[in-house]
């Protein structure tokens, strides 16, 4: 049975509330690293990471370049940089042009993480008003990972979940309130893997 090695999350408008809720329910010893791209203003500073770190049991920080990816830690892409995963398991940043009008871009993180973690990757798409992440979820599926999408009916802004569902067949489509429990059961050894999604939009 595949053992998961990392979670990547893409979120755009409505993201602050969604991340507060989701990360707030993860335990401090969550067994996987969590890498997040949230679309954010270039000048936003690192206030978001500090805010979430104060609210959540799990450690939340802004990603630094050349930082090792370790479990029980949430890494937020810094404003105005893409976040990528290197083959040696370290993080890297890039100032390359925006992708799908976004920097950081969900696609950039997901595609690089898919290449490194393969079937050990859980990709999560939450609320958002554009289609960033839809190429990324395809890459995750092609590399054997699994894709979890927030139920569009449950999302503050449904476009990003809808685009992800149109791009690939999601393994789980769940409401935000059920997301943390799902991630925990997946991370806990893969017992909930496939076939246990609460609803199917595929």
């Amino acid at each position: 049975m595949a053992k998961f090695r990392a979670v990547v999350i893409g979120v755009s408008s409505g993201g602050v509330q969604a991340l507060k809720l989701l990360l707030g329910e993860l335990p401090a010893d969550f067994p996987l690293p969590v890498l997040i791209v949230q679309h954010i203003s270039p000048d936003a500073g690192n206030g978001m990471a500090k805010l979430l770190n104060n609210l959540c049991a799990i450690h939340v920080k802004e990603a630094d370049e050349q930082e090792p990816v370790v479990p029980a830690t949430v890494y937020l892409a810094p404003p105005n940089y893409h976040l990528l995963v290197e083959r040696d398991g370290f993080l890297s940043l890039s100032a390359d042009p925006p992708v799908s009008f976004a920097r950081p871009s969900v696609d950039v993180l997901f595609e690089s993480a898919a290449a490194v973690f393969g079937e050990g990757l859980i990709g999560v798409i939450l609320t958002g008003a554009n289609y960033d992440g839809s190429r990324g979820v395809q890459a995750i599926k092609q590399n054997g990972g699994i894709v979890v999408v927030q139920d569009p009916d449950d999302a503050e802004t449904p476009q990003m979940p809808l685009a992800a569902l149109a791009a690939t067949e999601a393994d789980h489509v769940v409401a935000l309130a059920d997301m943390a429990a799902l991630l925990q059961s997946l991370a806990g050894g893969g017992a909930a893997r496939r076939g246990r999604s609460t609803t199917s939009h595929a």
Partner: protein
Amino acid sequence: MTADELVDVEIRLLLEGLQQVYGYDFRDYADASIKRRLTQWLAESPFETFSQAQSRLLREPELFVSLLQGITVNVTDMFRDPSFFRTLREQVIPFLKTYPFVKIWHAGCASGEEAYSMAILLNEEGMAGRYRMYATDIDEAVLAKAAQGVMPITEMQRYTRNYQKSGGTASFADYYTARYDRAILAANLKKDIVFAPHNLVADAEFGEMNMVLCRNVMIYFKPALKERCLRLFDNSLLPGGFLCLGLKETLERRKMGDHYDELVPGSRIYRKRYG
């Protein structure tokens, strides 16, 4: 082996070949970003795979040049990170003003946006004619573009906002002339800048600099190449000189970090100690 791992093998072989044939060495570039840039080049090329492209890339210098531009170009803005330029203006320029003449090395200047931003800042602070800026890049085509000082007019609104946030004291529109869809930067911004080719992977340092700027360039390098660059910069800087990095780059955990103090926490502007 997965399809993705196979692509990684092809990329390693290609980079090895390019190094041997053309002398450009990208083997110490961080894998994820260079893979992304190469994949983008491949998608826009007539080739299906890197193996297919390799045969022609090794034989056709013009094709290699197109690839080179795809993998080296660093995109930036004028006054990117306004807070950085504000700190320069308020905390660094007062030191620089105490010298009769200062030399600045801008490494990895790409199409010149930050070099020109720096020139605007220095001129506004009364240092016109009292500095020389060496703006270097690996890519000669992008340097030629930088030397022209022509930018898309569509960017000017954003650059104006950045400039104002950085503490600019004049009207940004005075620094360029609009012509059709382009903005031509004023000639007096160019006269103290020397654009020159320089390869951080292979070339030597520049002597006796008061300031070295290298922002968001080393983020694309593997650790060993980063260390090499930092040694180059250290050897280039006079005591009391300033090293300016990107906002997510730090000298913490670096060998040379002990010889530098960060001017303002988080600014990534480091001052070299005396002795």
